[in-house]
């Protein structure tokens, strides 16, 4: 193995809102970047390269926006890469940035991901019908609702599990000053009383649509050693992809996710994820995806994930707090949502998660998925260097 040790030196994010009309795209990005660079205590001269990620260009109406953003990204005269892997892109972008350090090519890399849907019309962007493909015509919720129904049927999970997740994540979001939705008073009952959108997914079980950005500074071993209070060391990374549709595909528990998780735990030297991982930031855009991904990631046996959720073990103070930041259910700037999961995992092991800090967090998972549950990217970060 020739991988160089790589660490998260600092993170930053914007205040996420439905419409950030107070800033342009460069302004939005700089809000996250400036915070990440201050957190990492680095200046522009320290940055060797920039990696930008976002979901479809049609969401803002700009083709390859990294080109016009080069000035704002401080990238002039430097290498600039642009990643796009559907909803998992924020995670994949972090992994490309990590590979620039892991390969020994660079010492410090700035990575940033964003979405500013208020600049254009995302529903229009998603509604262009390609030939020869079945139109969904229902947005992401309508696409994923049958997967959730199938999960409930297969696992026999009781109906209120989704509401438990939604109430927990929104209450966690109330602890996060950057979250789009901060609902300290939400309850399982109030979630269950909210409007049904795509049976069985209710309004309060659905992610918002946000403008926002997330940035991180990654560095090599020497840079990680210099971080006051300790950096977040990358222990393992994994990415996997499978096609959207084919006969016999398991869309509830996709093999690409299972394969990525198996590779991740093997590289991190983790045999029992539930007991060895202290906190997980998992991409949960609709509440029921928490138990579904707990199983897909190997935290629970197939059909058993909902029991971990029901027992309260995924709340802050439980055995495996999931999305203490509030997760995608509280903030969803699509292209940045994956990087937020990765950076929130880093913040936990750096002890920088503020009011939603999980006590004694030493090992954390960051997870993202995209497309029709077909793109997966994930990392494990730790307070200690990997063995």
């Amino acid at each position, binding site marked *: 193995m*020739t*991988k160089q040790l790589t660490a998260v030196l600092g993170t930053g994010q914007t205040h996420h809102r439905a419409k950030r009309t107070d800033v*342009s*795209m460069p302004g939005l990005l700089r809000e996250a970047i400036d915070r990440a660079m201050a957190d990492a205590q680095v200046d522009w001269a320290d940055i060797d390269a920039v990696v930008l990620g976002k*979901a*479809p*260009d*049609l*969401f*803002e*109406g*700009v*083709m*390859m*926006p*990294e*080109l*016009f*953003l*080069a*000035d704002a990204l401080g*990238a*002039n*005269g*430097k*290498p*600039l*890469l*642009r*990643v*796009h*892997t*559907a909803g998992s892109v924020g995670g*994949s972008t972090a992994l*490309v940035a990590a*590979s*620039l350090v*892991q*390969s*020994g*090519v660079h010492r410090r890399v700035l990575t940033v991901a964003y979405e500013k849907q208020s*600049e254009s019309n995302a529903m229009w*962007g*998603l509604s*262009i019908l*390609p*030939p*020869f493909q079945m139109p969904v015509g229902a947005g992401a919720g309508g696409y994923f609702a049958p997967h959730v129904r199938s999960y409930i049927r297969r696992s026999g999970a009781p109906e209120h599990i989704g509401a438990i997740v939604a109430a927990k994540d929104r209450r966690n979001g109330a602890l996060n000053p950057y979250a789009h939705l901060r609902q300290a008073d939400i309850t399982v009952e109030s979630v269950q009383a909210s409007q049904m959108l795509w049976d069985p997914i209710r309004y309060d079980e659905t992610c918002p649509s946000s403008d926002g950005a997330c940035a991180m500074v990654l560095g090599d071993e020497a840079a990680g050693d210099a971080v006051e209070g300790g950096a977040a060391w990358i222990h393992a990374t994994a*990415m*996997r*992809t*499978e*096609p*959207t549709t*084919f006969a016999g*595909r398991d869309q509830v528990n996709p*093999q690409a996710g299972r*394969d990525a998780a198996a590779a991740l735990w093997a590289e991190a030297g983790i045999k029992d994820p539930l007991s060895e991982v202290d906190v997980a930031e998992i991409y949960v855009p609709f509440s029921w995806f928490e138990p579904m991904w707990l199983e897909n990631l190997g935290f629970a046996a197939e059909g058993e994930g909902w029991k971990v959720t029901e027992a309260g073990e995924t709340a802050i103070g439980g055995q495996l707090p999931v999305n203490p930041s509030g997760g995608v259910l509280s903030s969803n700037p699509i292209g940045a949502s994956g990087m937020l999961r990765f950076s929130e995992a880093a913040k936990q092991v750096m002890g920088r998660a503020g009011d939603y800090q999980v006590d004694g967090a030493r090992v954390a998972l960051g997870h993202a998925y995209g*497309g029709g549950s*077909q793109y997966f990217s994930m990392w494990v970060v730790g307070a200690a260097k990997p063995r």
Partner: protein
Amino acid sequence: MPDVAIAGFAQAPNVRETPGTTNGVEMLVPIFAEVFEQTGLSKQDIGFWCSGSSDYLAGRAFSFIAAVDAIGAFPPIHESHVEMDAAWALYEAWLKIKMGEVETALVYGFGKSSAGELRRVLALQLDPYVVTPLWPDSVSIAGIQARMGLEAGLWSEKDLAEVAARGTEKDVSELLDTPYFADPLRRHDIAPITDGAAVVILSTVERARDIVEHPAVLTGIEHRVDSPVLGARDLTRSPSTEIAAKALDLDGVDLAELHAPFTHQELILRSALGLGEHVKINPSGGALAANPMFSAGLARIGEAAARIHRGESRKAVAHATSGPALQQNLVAVLEAR
């Protein structure tokens, strides 16, 4: 850190218009088969897949997802995608081999320029607040760049025609008799609009020796970007290419494949890379012969590598560009070792 080499290259026919869907993934299936036959590898031998393409070219969101079907990606694959020319996907794949994560990678780029009106589509790459609303198209921006060089005395219209005539039956004086397309550019100064795709197989040098007799060893690869503000940089030079070249050893290069969609841009690149008279430029015809968006840069690297595979070059430089007026540039050095 293992050294990396190019072990295989294939490209789709470069044509004005293909009959397939707007994302053009149909062009990939035959070239995947071709590169597997050429290298003796199969899908299962590939450790990492990486591609470059554009949603705006296809006119739809998530257009690259259809390419996963062209691969037949089951069992699931380790895969990534850049919204850039696939030359930058090759850079990402190079990192994965360098860091010891995989031994082999397959890189592909695809684009169907004919799906829209390319000149107008590319105007969407500009600053959306103050420049795109004016709809300056890509040929007109290149025309401004060419005009600045003419007025500075850096090149003449005859110099440009000579670039276009090289390696063809064309007569320079006849070319200069043709009308302007976008003053000062004539048709021969402008790359054709092309549908196309390309695929490159990368591997550790050790692995490449089993696949091809003369692997093209990737001894250096650098890329840089310049400011997007057209009025804030000297358009008659390419500072990003100059910086990338400085970080590389270009001494002894005998062949160059340059991604120059306009004749004057080839002159800018030759100067930025310091290429002398003895260097053979674009034996493939370059982007002026075929400019498949999002794979033309990767194809430059593939064309250079193929000439090393065939023993026609000992050391070659390949270049890819992206953005208006040579904003972003990648330079790779390939050697027979």
